[in-house]
Structures are given as structure tokens and as C-alpha cells.
């Protein structure tokens, strides 16, 4: 036996993953409250697909199944993807995305600990590029829906693409606030007009979505408190992101939405605390994390405002994932007893 002979009685990899899943629960509750139970269906689909794909890949690669399957990493990938895409979509959408994430982005790159790109974001990018139409039908918040779909009706749509007679998809879904802002600005509106005349907007950003975002923030603070993540990536991501938004708003408040709107819209808070902080695909040095987070924050804003997509978290994260080995190599901290 080699030293050390003692081991931190922590709960290991699965303990970390389970706590991250737990940190998502409050936001999930808010999601169900504002948008109905469809998200639970897509989470279940993602979980089953992720675990099945993980099990198949582990078996193919000759790994002990039970031990690795329970590490929770595949489940987390599935959940993050499910939370990133519209919940009211044909069942195969989340299944295809999850399969791509687990099989290609994770296992073909070497499995847990070896993948260069964030698996959930690879899955998202594949869906975004391959099925753009399905990726824009976000549920209308229940308080705004005249007649919201029941669970059975949602299930019927997810598994059979059937809607109740007389109900059109457009009636139960709507564009996200980010989408609305982007489209309307390009049509010549100003930020103030758009916000005043579109019912989906609320105090900070979208009705419902802003609450969910706030709970992502709370979950992120929990992860910080648990020392599962360090402050570097969320702080630099959100810091640069908000500062850039403030800068543009300062230049032209009519054409650039305020920083808080951006902060509580789309995937900014989910991305900053839960996605960009993925250990495997993020830098490990403190300075590296700051650079990584800062660049993502900048890219997210640029993609949102000047790019072709309404949100930019997935692409910003994937671009910066590719730079991680380089960032790590150039930001090695000073070793004890060595001069700077």
C-alpha cells in the first residue's frame, strides 16, 4: 500500500454530479410552474436516452457498467441539454441530441474526463443546425396562454405531434424575448417600444424565464458554497457579459437592450454556472478560468446581438472549449520555490 493511507470521506464523482443535479431542481420547479409539465417529459426522455447510450458505450468499451453508470455524469449531460431546448417538441429531438452528446461528443472522444467539447452543447449545436424550426417553438408562459395544454395534450404532441382540434402550434408557443428583441430591432423598433408592446416581457426579461434564470443563479451560488465550482468562470463570464451589454446600451439605449435584460435572458446564467464550469472542458488554472469565462461572456453578447442566432451560449462555449489546452498551457501558475 502506498501513501497516503487516508482518503477524504467525500462522496466522489457521483456526489459532485448529484449535487449539481440538485442545484438545478429549484429552477426546474419554476419551469414547471410557469410552463407546465412538458419539461419533465423531455427531462425523462433525456435521462433515459443518456443512461441507455452511456450503458451501451461503456459495454462496447469494456468498462464496469454499474460503477461508471452511477457516476451521474451522463444524467447531467442529458439534463443540461433538456433545459437548453424547447420542451414542447417531438420526442426524437431530445433523443437525437442526447445520443449525439453521449455517443459522439463524450465517448468517441475517450469518455469521462477526456472529451474536448462540452457534450450537452455539442448536442445543442447539432439540433440548432439540423432542426432550426423545432428549436424556436418555445412554450408560452401559462399566465399568458389562453388555454394552456394539459399534460395529456402535451404528451400527445411530443409523441404523436397531434394538437387538440382547433389549436395551432403558434397559439401555444411563442418566440423568446431574445428572439423578439432581435427580430423587432431589425424591423426598426426601439428597445422601449418592443418591451412595452410585447406581453412576454416582464420586469427584467421574459415572464417566467426571468424567474427560472434567478433560480439558476441561486443554484450556482449553492455550487459555489459547496465548493463544487470556483468563482472564476461565472464571475468573468457574467462580468464581461454585463459590462459589454452596459457599454452598448450606453452608446445607444434604443438599439441595445439593458444588461439586466441580457443577464436574465436565454442561457446566460445557466451557462455561467452550470455549463461553462464543466470541469472536463474548462481550463483548470485560475488565470485560465478568468480568460475562458471572459471570452465566453464577450462571445455570447456578440453572437446574440450581431450574430445569426438569438442566443450564443452553446457556440461561445464550444469555441472556447477548443482553446482550453492552449489557455491552460499559457497560464500555469508559479510553482513553490520558483521565481515568477
Amino acid at each position, binding site marked *: 500500500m502506498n*501513501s497516503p493511507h487516508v482518503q477524504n470521506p467525500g462522496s466522489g464523482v457521483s456526489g459532485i454530479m448529484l449535487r449539481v443535479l440538485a442545484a438545478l431542481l429549484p429552477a426546474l420547479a419554476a419551469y414547471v410552474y410557469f410552463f407546465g409539465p412538458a419539461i419533465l417529459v423531455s427531462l425523462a426522455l433525456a435521462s433515459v436516452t443518456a443512461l441507455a447510450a452511456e450503458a451501451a458505450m461503456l459495454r462496447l468499451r469494456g468498462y464496469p457498467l454499474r460503477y461508471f453508470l452511477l457516476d451521474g455524469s451522463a444524467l447531467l449531460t442529458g439534463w443540461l441539454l433538456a433545459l437548453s431546448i424547447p420542451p414542447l417538441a417531438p420526442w426524437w429531438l431530445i433523443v437525437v441530441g442526447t445520443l449525439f452528446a453521449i455517443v459522439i461528443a463524450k465517448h468517441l472522444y475517450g469518455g469521462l*474526463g477526456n472529451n474536448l467539447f462540452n457534450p450537452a452543447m455539442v448536442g445543442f449545436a447539432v439540433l440548432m443546425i439540423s432542426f432550426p424550426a423545432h428549436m424556436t417553438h418555445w412554450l408560452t408562459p401559462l399566465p399568458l396562454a389562453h388555454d394552456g395544454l394539459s399534460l395529456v395534450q402535451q404528451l400527445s404532441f411530443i409523441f404523436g405531434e397531434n394538437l387538440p382540434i382547433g389549436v395551432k402550434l403558434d397559439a401555444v408557443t411563442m418566440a423568446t424575448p431574445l428572439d423578439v428583441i432581435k427580430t423587432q430591432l431589425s424591423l426598426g423598433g426601439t428597445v422601449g417600444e418592443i418591451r412595452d408592446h410585447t406581453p412576454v416581457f416582464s420586469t427584467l426579461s421574459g415572464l417566467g424565464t426571468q424567474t427560472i434564470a434567478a433560480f439558476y443563479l441561486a443554484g450556482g451560488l449553492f455550487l459555489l458554497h459547496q465548493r463544487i465550482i470556483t468563482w472564476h468562470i461565472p464571475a468573468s463570464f457574467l462580468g464581461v457579459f454585463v459590462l459589454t451589454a452596459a457599454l452598448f446600451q450606453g452608446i445607444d439605449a434604443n438599439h441595445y437592450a439593458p444588461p439586466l435584460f441580457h443577464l436574465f435572458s436565454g442561457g446566460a446564467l445557466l451557462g455561467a454556472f452550470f455549463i461553462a464550469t464543466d470541469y472536463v472542458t474548462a481550463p483548470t488554472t485560475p488565470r485560465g478560468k478568468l480568460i475562458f469565462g471572459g471570452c465566453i461572456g464577450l462571445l455570447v453578447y456578440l453572437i446574440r446581438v450581431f450574430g445569426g442566432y438569438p442566443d450564443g451560449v452553446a457556440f461561445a462555449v464550444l469555441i472556447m472549449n477548443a482553446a482550453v489546452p492552449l489557455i491552460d498551457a499559457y497560464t500555469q501558475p508559479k*510553482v513553490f520555490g520558483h521565481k515568477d
Partner: protein
Amino acid sequence: MRTLFTFHGGIHPPQHKEESSRLPIAFAPLPQRLIVPLRQNIGASSTAIVQPGEQVLKGQMIAAADGLISVAVHAPTSGRVVALENHAVPHVSGMPGLCAIIEADGEERWFARQPIDYRNIAPHLLHQRLRDAGVVGLGGAAFPTHVKLDPGQQQKIQTLVINGAECEPWITSDDVLMRERASEVVEGIKIMAFMMQPEEVLIGIEDNKPEAIAAMRQACQGTNYEVVAVPTLYPTGGEKQLIKVLTGKEVPSGSRPLSIGVSCSNTGTAYTVHRAVNCGEPVISRVVTVTGNVRQPQNFEVLIGTPIGELIALAGGAKDDTRRYIVGGPMMGFDLPALDAPLVKSVNCVIAVSDALFPPAPPAMPCIRCGRCAQSCPADLQPFELYWFSQSRNFDKARAYQLFDCIECGCCSYVCPSNIPLVSYYRFAKSEIAAIDRDKKAAELAKERFEFREARLAREKQQKAALLAQKQAQQKAAAAADPDAAAKKAAIQAALERAQARQAATTPPPEHP
């Protein structure tokens, strides 16, 4: 209040100190047979100066220092040397070592002890006394103390650090020594301070040892030594870490503390310095903690050479579910190879291990780059990177990421959520790199030899050719000078032509098919 500094990282493993520190130090009885290893220090092994069959007295030198970084070894009791042979010893390598086996006569007759007055003696004689009394660092490394206390000519020593941190869990031998024998420890510190003439003397003790701190403060009254309570954080007791905490200075990589004007010694060492100088007694015993899965954990003063199995029995014996024994602490200690392996100077603790007290690590998972190892590393290394490089035998990268600054404290392995035995990978890489360096050196030497031989052969060939050319030139010159020679040459030529003509005449013409 003194301003303290911090080092990066560190961990808070469960302490388990109370188990063994409740009872006072007990004296272990004289064993019948003592096994005294001749190598108990870092550096050169001592040279035996007794023969099997010889009678020895307690404290008599049985092996002398060999070279500068070496110290003497002594008979722990009076008796007869029955053998000089290889025997299991507690060493991290698990390899046996040459030992003097001494059968005790039970009379404990002392060799003539000669205390010296350190203030009135030539410095080199004081160094010699420490060497010949076998004084080494008792914190675990067993580095010869007289070398540590030799600042050299040009060095000015600013700080003498006395290390009473004892940061490893379970170990309490320094703690109880300071509680019970603080004044003698301070006497030893006085001798060290006299030898080094430092500007300040700082005694660093972790704040989980309030009784030791109080006793040492009491004993330091009337001196300008400062007892500093340092925060409990493993590995504060690491030499470079404690120096950083107390002085804010970082010992440069690959250097000794003396290079920045600091000298650091253990409290237990200070105690033996006092015994060696003021009492004339060499290091033939030490205080050792016997704890873990034994019935009565306690500290014992034990003769060097006592079989460790006898110590376990003194502590009430090991409980039935004991699986193995650790020598040293749980963070950096190693497995005891055999129960009859003897206590040596560097052993401060023996821990009986059961699965209940030390649950075996679960199987290792892949590294997920969570970075906890880097957050806990007191050497500011990136342990997971070193792990990747070691695992893939990418030794050049491992070296470039300063593998050799790793002190093997075990913090990284302790915090790893994937339960990867990181330190084992570093030990593997270090030994592989050392082997590669050795091979490289050997290859360079062989190449040098080969090239020298080639050059020599070429030179010899050239010399021969020159000699031959000279000879031929001489012959030519001689031939040209001799008129007979030309006639002789013409006669030979004529004879050759005649012979060819004859042969042509006798040879039948070729057949045509």
C-alpha cells in the same frame, strides 16, 4: 503578535491525536535482542567498527561516520554483537539493510559518557561531537544534523526555525516530548543557536497542541526565542512550508534553507542535541507513538533496534481486525515490512491499521479535471497534469511541469474525488526519470569512450601510414642511389618475358566447338 504567512493549499484531515497523547511517555523495557541498522541517515551508510562476537557497552560506537553526510551508530545497550547481517528494516523501499544484531546482557553498562561545554570548544569539535553521537533529524528525513548546523563561511543565518508543528494525523511524539521535556528541548535549541548565531529563533507549533505551546513558552522564558502557534493545516510541518509560514520566505526549488539564511530542525532533534552535548549520550533511543488499532495507544521512549512487534505488544497489542502497520503518519508513512523490523531513528510513529479506521479507497475513476488537487497542493503544482504526463510516460512534460518539486505530501490523493492514487504515479515517474537520466549518463560515457577509441585508432593508423610512407621513401631513395639495382631490375624483367613466351608456346590453342 507576529505576522504569519500562508502557503497555497493544504488540507484538514481528521486529527486522531488524543488517542495517544492522553498518557505520559512510558519507557519500553529492554529487549533481549536489538537489531541496529548501520544506515539510519540520509547520505552514506556508517562503517561497522565492531566484529561479531565482540562485547559492547551501552552507547559505544559500533559504526563510524563515512564521509561528510553520515553519522555514527551506537550500541543501545550493553551486550554482545552476535552478527552483522541483512535484516528487514523500516524503509520506504521495503528492502532489507545491514544490521548489527546485539544480544543484551541486561546490565545496561554505559560507555564512558563525556559531556562537553559547548561554549568553550572549537566549533569543528562540536560538529564532530554531533556526528559521532549519531544526531540526525528526527522529523522523518534523518538528515545529519551537524551538516544542517554548518552555515559555511560566508552564510549569515537570519532565522533558526525549530519545527514542532507535527502536522500529520495520529502522531504525537513531538507533542508529548515538548510537554514533558520542554526545558531539555530548549537546552538543545540553545546549543543550535550558539552554533548558528541566528538573528532570531522561532519555534513553530500547530495550535492544536496548546499544552506543548504552554510548556515551551515556559521553558523559553529568559531567552529571546519565540514560540509561535501556527494554524493547524497539513502539511505545515513540511520544512519549506513551515519556513514560509514563519518567515514568508520561499526556499528556492532544488536548494536547502541555508541558501536563504534559514536553518530548520525538529524539536526531537533539539532534544538529542542536548543529550549528546550536555550529557555525552549518543542517540540510542527516541520517543515513538504507537497508535491506531491497538488496545492502549501511547508514546514510548524506546531503544533504537527494538523490534517494532514488541512495541505493538507494549501498547496492549493489536486488535484482531488489524491488517497491517504504517510506519510514520497516514499521509506520508509506508507499510512496515515485518514485525521484527527494528525501530530506527527516523520512525516517529507506528499505526496499526484496520479497515474500520482506514477504509480502503474505492476503485479509481477517470480524472475529471476538477482541479481540487491543484487547489490543495502546497507546492503550487498542477497534480492532475502531472498525473496525465506520468500515466502516458510523457516524462519530459512531467519534468517541465516541475514534478521534482512535489514533496509527496499526499494532499492531492486525499482530496481526489476519483480516488486516483496520484502520489504513486509521481513516485513511478520520478524513478523512471532517474533511471532514464542514469542510462543517458551511461550512454554518454560509452559514447565518449567509443569516440576516444575511434580517435586513437585513427591516430594510430595515421602514424603507421606515415611510418610506412617514410620507409618507402627511404627505400626509393636507396634504390635510386644504387646503380646495381637498375641492372638487377632489367634482368628480372627479361626473365619474366622469357617465361611468358615459353608458356604461350606450350599452351594448346583453345578448342572450337
